[in-house]
């Protein structure tokens, strides 16, 4: 009997664990180590953040689902990896610290044959003074929608602002809280939901709504922008996004590294080196992401964290990490197997793998501050990679050295993104976008780097209906209800 341990029960880890268990059956063991008691359909946190959904609508408890599936669930966080075992034992293991199941604070060693790191991002609020509280949590001046609890808090603050805006002019700031953030799409969706809700609440005229972001241009989205077919033209996402912001009366500050947050004020540096300040009454700023800080130790106890993890804390896989200039970046730099090059029984899926470089064009201010989005690894790629890793591990377990490693690159993978503006079935709209591939391949698609037949975007109710359907479909799938395997990632 082999044991697979999946660290992280989010989009990627849940996909890996559930498929692996289905394919391995009771002959082998699948263990999920994750600190959260609930699974969260994160994209719908946006609707929680504007009060259109409750927390209970976007989360469900993991324990009964894993029990039904026969997965050994440990509500704990992984702390360290020991890929060579320890003195007196060659058996690889991880150490975990419980966060629930009545064992809070207890630690344990768990041996493994295969290990998948799907621990997602650490929300690195403390990278920007004032954005964090100094203890790794969000600070008191801004809100976030990155977790369901954050989103609940964001909504209560937003409602307070809407109430005040009935009698006075106020300012809302939404965007990224650092020069190296990703996830602009989530902030983009949130700002237009706020705009929509403000109109509904009759306070739009009293609210100045502003976007602040590390993108060099609107519509970069951490993917260097994209070109899509709209109305017979092939247009840059810059035009698409600028049109939307202008239509909704949302002003923007771009190429901005927020370097300090105070009560009611952000300080920022821009790509041209100028320093600025922006006041706000309500701000939702996405924090930069980092790896969750797992440590790794060799058999003799020496620290080998640097061997397994990149400096940003994400796990090294089969990517080409050789530093090279933007002009030499290639689609083939991106990993295909998600396998650690040093320890071949270790994989990383979703946000947890270290990308070879960013996707957007790198940029620095004259002061040397890097201000560019880091690469997004959205839900669809995270799910697809999670499933591919499950296939690889299952094949290795069943067929030993003859096992087939499933290959899939983000340069051959698309992403579907639906950014809503409102939630109503007939009054909201959404920007529905697909990008193919996520990582541009200029050798295959000279010009835009992407297939413009399958990279498109449009605004309307249709996208909105799709967003609703995806919400119910993915929660249904994650609960492993009948036919769940037929729903694609």
């Amino acid at each position: 009997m082999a044991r697979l341990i999946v660290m992280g029960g989010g989009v990627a880890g849940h996909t890996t664990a559930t498929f692996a268990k289905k394919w391995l059956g009771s002959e082998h063991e699948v263990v999920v180590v994750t600190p959260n008691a609930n699974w969260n359909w994160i994209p719908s946190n946006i609707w929680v953040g504007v009060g259109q959904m409750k927390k209970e609508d976007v989360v469900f408890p993991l324990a009964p689902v894993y029990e039904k599936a026969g997965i050994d669930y440990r509500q704990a966080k992984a702390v360290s990896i020991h890929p060579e075992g320890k003195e007196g034992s060659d058996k690889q293991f991880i150490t975990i610290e419980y966060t629930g199941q009545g064992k809070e604070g207890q630690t344990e060693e768990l041996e493994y044959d295969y290990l998948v790191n799907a621990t997602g991002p650490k929300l690195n609020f403390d990278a920007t003074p004032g954005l964090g509280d100094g203890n790794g949590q969000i600070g008191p001046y801004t809100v976030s929608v990155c977790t369901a609890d954050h989103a609940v808090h964001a909504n209560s603050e937003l409602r307070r602002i809407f109430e005040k805006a009935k009698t006075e002019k106020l300012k809302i700031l939404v965007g990224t809280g650092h020069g190296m953030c990703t996830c602009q799409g989530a902030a983009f969706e949130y700002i237009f939901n706020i705009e929509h809700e403000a109109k509904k609440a009759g306070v739009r005229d009293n609210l100045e709504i502003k976007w602040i972001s590390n993108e060099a241009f609107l519509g970069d989205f951490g993917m260097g922008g994209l070109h899509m077919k709209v109305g017979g033209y092939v247009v840059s996402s810059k035009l698409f996004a600028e049109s939307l912001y202008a239509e909704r009366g949302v002003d923007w500050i771009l190429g901005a590294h927020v370097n300090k947050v105070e009560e009611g004020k952000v300080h920022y540096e821009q790509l041209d080196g100028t320093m600025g300040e922006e006041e706000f009454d309500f701000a939702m700023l996405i924090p930069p992401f980092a790896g969750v800080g797992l440590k790794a130790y060799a058999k003799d106890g020496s620290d080998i964290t640097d061997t397994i993890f990149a400096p940003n804390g994400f796990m090294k896989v089969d990517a080409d990490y050789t530093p090279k200039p933007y002009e030499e970046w290639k689609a083939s730099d991106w990993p295909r197997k998600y396998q650690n090059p040093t320890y071949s029984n270790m994989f990383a899926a979703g946000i947890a793998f270290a990308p070879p470089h960013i996707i957007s064009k790198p940029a620095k201010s004259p002061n040397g501050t890097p201000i560019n989005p880091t690469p997004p690894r959205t839900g669809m790629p995270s799910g697809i990679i999670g499933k591919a890793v499950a296939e690889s591990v299952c094949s290795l377990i069943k067929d030993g050295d003859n096992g087939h490693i499933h290959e899939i690159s983000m340069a051959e993978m698309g992403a579907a993104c639906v950014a809503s503006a409102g939630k109503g079935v007939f009054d909201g709209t959404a920007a529905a976008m697909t990008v193919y591939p996520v990582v541009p391949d200029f050798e295959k698609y000279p010009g835009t780097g992407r297939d413009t037949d399958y990279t498109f975007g449009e605004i309307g109710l249709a996208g909105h209906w799709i967003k609703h359907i995806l919400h119910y479909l993915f929660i249904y799938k994650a609960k492993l209800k009948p036919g769940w395997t037929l729903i694609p990632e």
Partner: protein
Amino acid sequence: MKEEEVNFGKSDKFNLTMIPGKFARFLRTCVIWQFIRFLVINVKMIIVVGKSH
């Protein structure tokens, strides 16, 4: 002033972009047109999902 022209005057940035007119805005919430778009977008998304696996 037509609704779509209001924001052009609000800032230089807005002035240099494009803002949808009445018909384009109507199509965004026209249920019949959006139902057709719904089918088209779904087909495209399914193809993208298929190409990605």
